[in-house]
């Protein structure tokens, strides 16, 4: 009887032992699978971030690139540009993975959804080429241009937006019907042509960024004017000097990011102005007399442009109008240089 009881207890102990050991083995394998999966995800994200950086480099090297890339990951991205040191970085949300974007002009909303990513490049010329700017957006963001079909400003804004980016025109000047346009999108960027006086409060319940665009000129090139971002119940305004800069403002839809990228463009433009002045200085002894005269006038204009660009952004109308005029003069003199068969400036 006692032996039988011992046998039962022994068997029960055996089963308990098997269950505990089995549970430990199962837990162990679960933890191994989780850690392997995390590692694979991390590696995939790191690899994608590197691939994105390479694609951005390739895209930046060419003008008018239009492409859609698939991230293969649902992770979203954060784009941050530090206004103090002017260094931007693309980071994966919820991870420590980030890639510094030190040398390119990238305009992007601070939040970009994973999945498909739209990339477009356009050249920035002031009037000499500064660089190719890269514009990044995603299919969950829609750009809505408010203005009637007869409004030239609204037409300019609508045409400026790349065709690959989801974009619509809203003809009603009271924002009615905007909820229908936003259906299926996570975020909207509402761009109002300066001619319409509608208060941004009407859109406070929608997931949208609002901005107002005022053009100083519409018929001449370069296009320049002012963009007003409506953020935290306040307006923050910055100027733009070319249509590429304006597109940058529309794509970033965020005043601090725009300002930071604008500062990078300005510092690059000032550096290039110095380079062209040095180049003319080096060319001067080797060119004919007629070229020397034209070169002397263009150096003055380039110096003027450089000084205009160096003005702080916080000033009212700091550079757009005068910068636009200086750019036009440099363009004209460069044509004159070509006419005289002298080595061209840019």
């Amino acid at each position: 009887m006692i032996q039988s009881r011992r046998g039962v207890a022994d068997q029960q102990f055996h089963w308990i032992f098997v269950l505990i050991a089995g549970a430990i083995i199962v837990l162990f394998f679960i933890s191994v699978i989780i850690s392997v999966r995390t590692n694979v995800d991390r590696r995939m994200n790191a690899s994608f971030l590197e691939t994105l950086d390479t694609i951005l480099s390739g895209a930046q090297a060419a003008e008018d690139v239009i492409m859609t890339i698939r991230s293969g990951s649902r992770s979203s991205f954060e784009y941050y540009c530090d206004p103090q040191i002017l260094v931007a970085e693309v980071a994966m949300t919820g991870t420590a993975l980030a890639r510094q974007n030190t040398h390119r002009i990238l305009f992007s909303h601070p939040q970009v959804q994973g999945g498909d990513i739209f990339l477009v490049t356009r050249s920035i010329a002031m009037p000499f080429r500064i660089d190719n700017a890269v514009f990044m957006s995603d299919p969950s963001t829609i750009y809505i241009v408010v203005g009637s079909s007869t409004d030239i400003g609204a037409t300019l804004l609508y045409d400026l937006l790349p065709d690959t980016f989801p974009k619509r025109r809203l003809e009603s000047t009271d924002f009615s019907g905007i909820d229908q346009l936003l259906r299926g999108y996570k975020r909207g960027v509402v761009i109002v042509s300066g001619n319409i006086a509608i208060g941004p409060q009407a859109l406070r319940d929608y997931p949208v960024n609002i901005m107002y665009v005022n053009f100083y000129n519409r018929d001449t090139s370069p296009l320049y004017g002012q963009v007003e971002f409506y953020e935290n119940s306040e307006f923050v305004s910055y100027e733009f000097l070319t249509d590429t800069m304006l597109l940058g403002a529309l794509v970033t839809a965020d005043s601090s990011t725009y300002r930071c990228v604008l500062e990078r463009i300005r510092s690059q433009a000032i550096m290039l102005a110095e380079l062209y002045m040095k180049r003319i200085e080096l060319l001067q002894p080797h060119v004919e007399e007629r070229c020397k005269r034209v070169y002397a006038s263009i150096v003055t204009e380039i110096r003027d442009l450089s000084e205009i660009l160096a003005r702080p952004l916080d000033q009212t109308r700091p550079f757009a109008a005068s910068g636009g005029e200086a750019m036009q003069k440099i363009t004209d003199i460069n044509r004159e240089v070509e006419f005289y068969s002298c080595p061209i400036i840019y």
Partner: protein
Amino acid sequence: MSNHLLKRSQIKLFESIAVLVIFFFLVAIGLRIYGGYELHALEEMQVQFSTLDSIKTSLLLLSLPELTCTVYSLDRGSCIDLYKAHAFAELTLAHGDHYYDKFRDSLIVLEQIEPSPFTITLYNESGELTGSFRYTPVPVSIWNPVRRYYGLGILHVYVQVIQ
């Protein structure tokens, strides 16, 4: 009899524990092999990334407005303007910090092979090439806007490999 049963149970228990120990030992060996493979894959990835960095720097140089030649306001691919190159060399000496963000610790030298060979150091933050560097030679044409001819040259790009 009871002692005999107890011994049999103990032997069974030891057997089970021995099986578990061997099992975990094999799993540990498997994990070590997998870890080694992962480490190797990471090292390969690092080499790939540094190669990409070097290619990106070369690509950046070829599209850099500070260097590219323009003919009738249009950029020509793989072409460097001689006078821009000289001006750029002076600019990087004066504003090295501005270009450090672009080229980091690297050495970039433009060499003209034909006609009349010469070299211009465009950028030098290499610390006399101490450490590990990846070298990428890029064939380019060099435009002389005064004498109006194209020279044949090589852009020597040395980019430091980050360990």
